[in-house]
């Protein structure tokens, strides 16, 4: 068998076409990641002079820092609660949008706007709304009679975490909605029609038919949201930038790296975060055996 087929030429061109992307990704992803790993074993500072190897020293220090563990807890707390809420609300709105009705495009547009604006802007708008003295949230709650004196949302660490979760749910539910809506729309009508003929109630139909058929889309959506949530930075930084109690892992990493100029230490934190997320991904994918390459959705990080 000869080795100079005409179609090999095609393959050669294919590699050529791939080259720019691969090179770019190596440059901006593989290399910096490797460097971060390297830095984590050194005492590098932001000025990047006099870099010495110190082995696992950074890692030891990180694992002994209570602020680190606080940030881990915060991140997990944030992830679990916000993703759960977003999934439930997303599903609810998706069910609403599933059947055509008047005002459907209005709803869809309305729901996409929070997703499209910079997280920073959301953070600022809601920070203003949660303002203790002049915020509209306190005002409304007082008018309705839920509270008597204004709540200092941003001053209290528990409350500000709630506020952060609130904003994230507001901002990200649209994305979940769209994914789940697509999943709902791929369920053929006949399934529902035969359920109706069988006399199934709406609740039963939902529980026994819709939900199981939606499972693949749900699983994918939840994985991607969790991955995003574990990496959360923007919201937390902007809304509560100087609070230790609400910082998440990414905030903690950057703070050490840039604000405290301890590049080595911050890199060690980054490595831990990376490992965390990689582990999560592997476990989740293995556990749910989802086929990611064919027929799954992609997310847009924001």
């Amino acid at each position, binding site marked *: 068998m000869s080795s100079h*087929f005409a*179609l090999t*030429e095609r393959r050669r061109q294919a590699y050529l076409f791939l080259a720019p992307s691969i090179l770019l990704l190596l440059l901006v992803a593989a290399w910096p990641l490797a460097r971060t790993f390297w830095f984590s074993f050194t005492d590098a500072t932001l000025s990047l002079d006099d870099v010495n190897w110190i082995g696992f020293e950074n890692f030891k220090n990180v694992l002994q820092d209570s602020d680190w563990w606080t940030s881990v807890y915060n991140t997990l707390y944030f992830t679990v609660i916000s993703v759960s809420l977003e999934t439930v609300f997303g599903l609810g709105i998706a069910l609403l949008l599933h059947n055509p009705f008047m005002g459907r495009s209005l709803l869809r547009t309305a729901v996409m706007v929070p997703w499209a604006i910079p997280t920073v802007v959301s953070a600022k708008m809601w920070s203003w709304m949660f303002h203790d003295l002049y915020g509209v949230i306190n005002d409304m709650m007082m008018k309705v009679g839920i509270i008597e004196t204004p709540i200092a949302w941003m001053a209290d660490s528990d409350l500000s975490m709630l506020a952060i979760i609130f904003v994230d749910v507001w901002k990200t539910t649209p994305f979940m909605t769209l994914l789940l809506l697509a999943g709902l729309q791929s369920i053929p009508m006949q399934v529902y029609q035969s359920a109706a003929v069988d006399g199934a109630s709406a609740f039963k139909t939902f529980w026994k038919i819709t939900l199981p058929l939606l499972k693949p889309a749900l699983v994918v959506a939840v994985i991607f949201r969790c991955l995003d949530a574990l990496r959360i930075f923007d919201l937390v930084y902007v809304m509560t930038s100087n609070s230790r109690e609400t910082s998440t892992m990414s905030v903690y990493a950057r703070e050490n790296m840039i604000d405290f100029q301890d590049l080595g230490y911050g890199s060690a934190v980054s490595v831990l975060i990376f490992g965390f997320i990689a582990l999560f991904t592997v476990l989740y994918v293995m556990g749910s055996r989802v086929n990611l390459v064919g027929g799954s959705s992609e997310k847009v990080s924001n």
Partner: protein
Amino acid sequence: MAAEVHLQNVSKVYNKTTVVIPGIDLKLPKNELTVFVGPSGCGKSSLLKLIAGLEEVSGGEIFIDGKNVTHEPPSKRGIAMVFQSYALYPHMSVYENMAFALKISKTSPAEIDEKVRNVAQTLKLTKYLDRKPRQLSGGQRQRVAIGRALVRNPEVFLLDEPLSNLDAALRVDMRIEIAKIREHLNATMVYVTHDQVEAMTLADNIVVLRKGHIEQMGPPLEIYSKPLNKFVAGFLGSPSMNFIGFTVGDIIDNNCTLSGPGVVASAKFKIQPGSLKAGEHAFIGIRPEHIDVQKTLDGAELEFKTYAIEHLGDHSLLYGHVGESSCVLKVDPYTTYSVGETLGLKVQKQHYHVFDKDEKNVVDFARS
């Protein structure tokens, strides 16, 4: 100018395990229209793609006009192809569709213009040259697809089920168009179809394929009247040939008699010497139109029990059994038949075939 296409031990394997074509030797005579016909999965489209160069051979060589093109890209083989879905470039006008290949080969605009307009005129597409494919009807798109191929003046012209996307009436018209083009064209044509009517009407040569093997190759009427095996016999002709099972009786002087359920009085069937042994199981093959039907069993050879009747206007079809074998009869539309009726059959003596247990046709074609 036409070219001869020669496949030498060509094989194709997918995914290292699925053997679609085990090894084919084929010589397609130049200037003739050869039809590859066969059931789904027989490898006819794969074979076409190998000739076209759209897929690599797993083994063997391909020669076009004496030149070894096994490793050449499609555009360098002197071939052009019409695809099943026409594959016209949707964003280009008819003119641009037809000019595309010429532009790539850097032909001068003047020459391109001349060639395109010539072909357009032959195919009566001149007034559609500025239209886009979506503004054309199915038949017109077909012609553009053909035109796109013609413009390249190919030595070999490949057509991949070109009529299967058209409705029945249009198919008949286009079949005639293709036959007409065939007249003008000085090229070797290879035509793939699963429709045996197209095969019979258009081909100079038919290649019947099954599971990557050539079952038989020859002119249509020869394949129709002299099938080499049961598969080929049953593939061409509609309604297809009847196969009636029987047990071989005495064989005297290469004439065998048959016995079994449904046999009333056996006629003699001339077979090739030594092909059958008494007591063996075999089949008579006889086309519906070659059976004489009578209302009584007197003088009949086979007994037929009707279970369904279809009236088609110019003839009727009777479905029933002879013994344990199902059988279809073609009768005139004016005689009345009824379901459950028993009829007597006589096999026309110039048209029967005898198939042995390996499905090979062992009839002596010099019968009667």
